[in-house]
């Protein structure tokens, strides 16, 4: 069984540009989460999808961030326009009925 897959593994963009991160959850997992760790701080929750619906987006920092989950399958997280403080590692996780969340290996975003 494939795990949670994130693309790209690393992205370097200039301030003001747009970047789209993708997450493919484990097949059949209804729950999908985005987290991020910026500037060496704690890993913070961004949002939670149940299938294609946003269940909780209380962690989204501002309206430059847009998350979607097409048909309840893969998810994208778009940052537009990117700022320097957005640099960090973005993680995606998925889960099914069980409490355990399965994490991808992350996308390292560098904004220069």
């Amino acid at each position, binding site marked *: 069984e494939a795990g949670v897959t994130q693309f790209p593994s690393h992205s370097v963009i200039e301030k003001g540009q747009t970047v789209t991160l993708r997450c493919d959850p484990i097949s059949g997992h209804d729950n999908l989460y985005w987290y991020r760790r910026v500037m060496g701080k*704690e890993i913070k*929750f961004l949002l*939670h999808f149940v299938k294609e619906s946003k269940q*909780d987006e209380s962690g989204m920092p501002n309206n430059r961030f847009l998350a979607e989950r097409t048909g309840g399958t893969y998810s994208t997280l778009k940052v537009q326009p990117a700022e320097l403080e957005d640099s960090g*590692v973005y993680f995606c996780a998925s889960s099914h009925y069980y*409490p355990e*969340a399965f*994490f991808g290996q992350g996308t390292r975003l560098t904004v220069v």
Partner: protein
Amino acid sequence: GIQVEQSPPDLILQEGANSTLRCNFSDSVNNLQWFHQNPWGQLINLFYIPSGTKQNGRLSATTVATERYSLLYISSSQTTDSGVYFCAVGGGLRSGGYQKVTFGTGTKLQVLP
């Protein structure tokens, strides 16, 4: 929400030494996981351990759910163990039934050759 504290915040070891990392949490949980974030930023799942004890090679973990803490043991440490260790908990009574996890503050480990 659930509060998660880890100690120590920083740890420097000589290769071959043993260490114990601690995670305290403020509420009942049905999910506790330990992760290792390596120097390249990748998050590696170590243990899913809401209660009891598990071992995987040089690593082992124990969670005492009734006392709201978990311990991660690293024996015979190697330089490749360097990075940040996070515990993450979820499913507490006040979580609204979500399965999202809350991460601890992390322990930054450096193993010297």
